[in-house]
């Protein structure tokens, strides 16, 4: 492979997952995951806002989910780019606290502030960015971020917004299964037809690709952006809650901490069942015990409906790809949920071949994102991804019917042009309603945006000729331009996204996020100084029992007492400099004591 890393900075690849997120990069040895400070490669996509406003992300936040559930949020990816009315089902199953004023963009209440899903995702991204910066020792400000292939325009835009808020220039959004295929193709196979079955924490994707001498051409993709391991957890959790209700005689479902502890126990049992024939859900909480054994047989029976929901999209995808099942050379398994034996056997039955499981299903997407980052930096120049748009794009026409302009599974970038005219004499603007989806009626599809074409010359009805060009870029994101064919003049197109943030809102969030980062940094410094203070106070405490202390002059002991008291006074302030100064004063006041103690041990 021709790789040249000398000329480019570090562009990282990020898998922003429902359950876990990872950051990776590529060098001469290939793509590699960057671990966090705790050594873990997986950063749980959990965010907690501790009292005082400091942001905690990852494993520590996962712990806070138990003790401070009302300040902690997980699986926020499920809310990205969605409106309040299409998350009703999620709200029944997830402890999202939706704040008022969530009509156009969902607002989550965490502690005393509200945050939008892109802001929460940005906190996860910022943690990954920081992990990479600590690893490289230089700033990282460019990234490739993966998204579920079946994400619509609003969900993609929300992910891009999250990147911007986190201070990352998002060079490309790559579909998760495609990224996996890239990592897989690098490692295992150069030519052939490959299916990627990606069942993660919250989303399901199936993609079929043709691999041809470094070209990765996606033939078709399908999926369900609300199907994954979370659904299995919720299923088991419901059963466990019912058990607890009958055994303990109390409804734990209203106790956030209890629910989260039980949820953790359920997940452990689920994960265990991938390797052993039986596992038990165990909870010890407030002096009570709950235990229930689940056999794999029962587990399989319970989750069959969930696994079956993945098979329809697989069949549709095979059909759309225009290939026969026996033409598919390999099936690559991606996402933690593909460790489940029932999932593997269902895939094996459908594709009539043994699925590939030797790549780590948690890491392969991030590794692929790192490869794409290397492609974009120019350091890998013999590989190229040709991806598709997962959903058809259309506009509303008379009677609420959709006129499709770009069909699903079209290779991106893709474009379409459509001419519009006016219906009334002197009309100067035309409103275009763009939708995404496969159904015939507007109301059954996903509203993307309304585009207002303004400044049309006031002419007779039907005389205006405005050519509108719809372009889906390589990220799968739509842009619209318009030109008056009579005058040749470019039209301004005002976009009103149906769901999502405006540019101004994103800018404001970027600003706030910088301030937040500064606050976080300050809070960290304060915490560090308090740790120092604790250490020195403890040392003084001990020293006061030492013989050397009593040999000091009265005024020396008084000076120590004074410095200690002053340190205690500032201990709880938010001024790390002040605490540091007072620590230094205690140090100064105790120099002689420390020297004497040292002499004492030597003699």
């Amino acid at each position: 492979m021709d790789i040249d890393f000398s000329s480019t900075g570090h562009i990282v690849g990020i898998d922003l997952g429902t359950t876990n997120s990872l950051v990776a990069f590529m060098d001469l040895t290939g793509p590699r995951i960057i671990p966090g400070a705790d050594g873990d490669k997986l950063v749980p996509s959990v965010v907690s806002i501790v009292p005082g406003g400091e942001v905690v992300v990852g494993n520590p936040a996962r712990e806070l989910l138990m003790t401070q559930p009302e300040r902690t949020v997980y699986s926020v990816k499920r809310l990205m780019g969605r409106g309040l009315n299409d998350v009703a089902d999620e709200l029944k199953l997830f402890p999202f606290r939706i704040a008022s004023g969530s009509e156009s963009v969902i607002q989550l209440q965490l502690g005393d502030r509200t945050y939008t899903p892109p802001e929460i995702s940005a906190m996860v991204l910022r943690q990954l960015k920081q992990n990479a910066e600590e690893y490289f020792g230089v700033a990282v400000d460019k990234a490739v971020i993966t998204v579920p292939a079946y994400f619509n325009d609003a969900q993609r835009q929300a992910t891009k917004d999250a990147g911007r808020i986190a201070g990352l220039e998002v060079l490309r959004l790559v579909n998760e299964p495609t990224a996996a295929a890239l990592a897989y193709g690098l490692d295992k196979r150069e030519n052939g037809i490959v299916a990627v079955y990606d069942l993660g924490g919250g989303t399901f994707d199936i993609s079929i690709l043709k691999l041809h001498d470094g070209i990765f051409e996606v033939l078709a993709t399908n999926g369900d952006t609300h199907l994954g391991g979370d659904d299995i957890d919720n299923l088991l959790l419901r059963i466990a809650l019912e058990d607890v209700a009958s055994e303990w005689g109390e409804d734990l479902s209203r106790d956030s901490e209890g629910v989260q502890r039980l949820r953790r126990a359920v997940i452990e049992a689920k994960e265990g069942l991938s390797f052993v024939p039986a596992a038990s859900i165990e909870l010890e909480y407030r002096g009570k015990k709950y235990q229930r054994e689940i056999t794999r047989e029962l587990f399989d029976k319970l989750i069959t409906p969930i696994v079956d929901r993945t098979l329809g999209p697989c069949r549709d995808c095979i059909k759309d790809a225009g290939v026969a099942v026996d033409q598919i050379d390999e099936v690559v398994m991606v996402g933690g949920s593909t460790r489940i034996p029932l999932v593997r056997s269902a895939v094996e039955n459908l594709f009539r071949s043994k699925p590939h499981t030797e790549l780590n299903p948690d890491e392969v997407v991030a590794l692929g994102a790192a490869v794409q980052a290397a492609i974009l930096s120019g350091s890998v120049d013999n590989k190229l991804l040709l991806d598709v748009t997962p959903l058809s794009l259309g506009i509303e026409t008379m009677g609420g019917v959709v006129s499709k302009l770009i069909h699903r599974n079209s290779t991106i970038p893709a474009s379409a042009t459509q001419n519009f005219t006016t219906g009334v004499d002197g009309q100067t603007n035309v409103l275009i309603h763009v939708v995404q989806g496969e159904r015939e009626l507007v109301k059954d599809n996903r509203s993307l945006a309304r585009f207002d074409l303004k400044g049309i010359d006031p002419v007779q009805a039907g005389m205006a000729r405005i050519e509108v060009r719809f372009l889906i870029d390589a990220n799968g994101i739509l842009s619209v331009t318009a030109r008056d064919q009579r005058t040749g003049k470019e039209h301004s197109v005002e976009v009103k996204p149906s769901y999502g943030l405006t540019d101004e809102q994103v800018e404001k969030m970027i600003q706030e996020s910088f301030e937040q980062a500064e606050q976080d940094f300050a809070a960290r410094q304060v915490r560090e100084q308090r740790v120092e203070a604790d250490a020195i106070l403890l040392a003084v405490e001990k020293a006061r029992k030492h013989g050397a202390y009593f040999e000091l002059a009265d005024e020396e002991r008084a000076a120590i007492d004074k410095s200690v008291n002053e340190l205690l006074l500032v201990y709880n302030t938010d001024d790390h400099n002040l605490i540091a100064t007072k620590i230094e004063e205690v140090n100064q006041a105790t120099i002689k004591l420390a020297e004497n103690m040292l002499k004492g041990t030597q003699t």
Partner: protein
Amino acid sequence: MTDYFELFGIPRSLNLSLDALQQRYYELSRQLHPDRFMQKPEAERQRALDMSSALNDAYRTLKDPVKRAQYLLGLEGFDIGEQRSKDVPPELLEEVFELNMALEEMRGGDDSARPQLEQAEKNFTNMLAETDQQLQSFFEQYDKSKSQDVLSQIRNVLNRRKYIQNLVSEVERTLTPSPQPPIPAH
């Protein structure tokens, strides 16, 4: 508007080797895809976006025989509007009349029309295969002669094909109604 044939560097023709087309598509993609221009100035990146979207649109059109023929007809100034394909081809009148009766019965809940519809589906699917053969032979004629008369015949076959295609889809939809949501069992 870029001429798709020019973009691929091939003469206006209807019989294309799909392997050669794919090969050329991959070569052009390697040159034009936005991934290759990430480190370049904004103007070049914009041009790459325009060029590669045109390339993808071109490939999508040229690799499909029907779309390819429609596209070439458009280039040669033929009217390829939707309207014409809604007229019933005269030789199908009787069959379409009977089919519509059967479709009505089926939609009304009368399942006895099912065998007739299944037979009709087979007949029309066979007709589709026939029109595809006709198209193939007209494609060859056109590539040799570049005759406008042949194009006109191709347009007629395309309209007929579209009409039959719609019938087949309609029958398929009626025979396999969209699945009802499952009723929860208690």
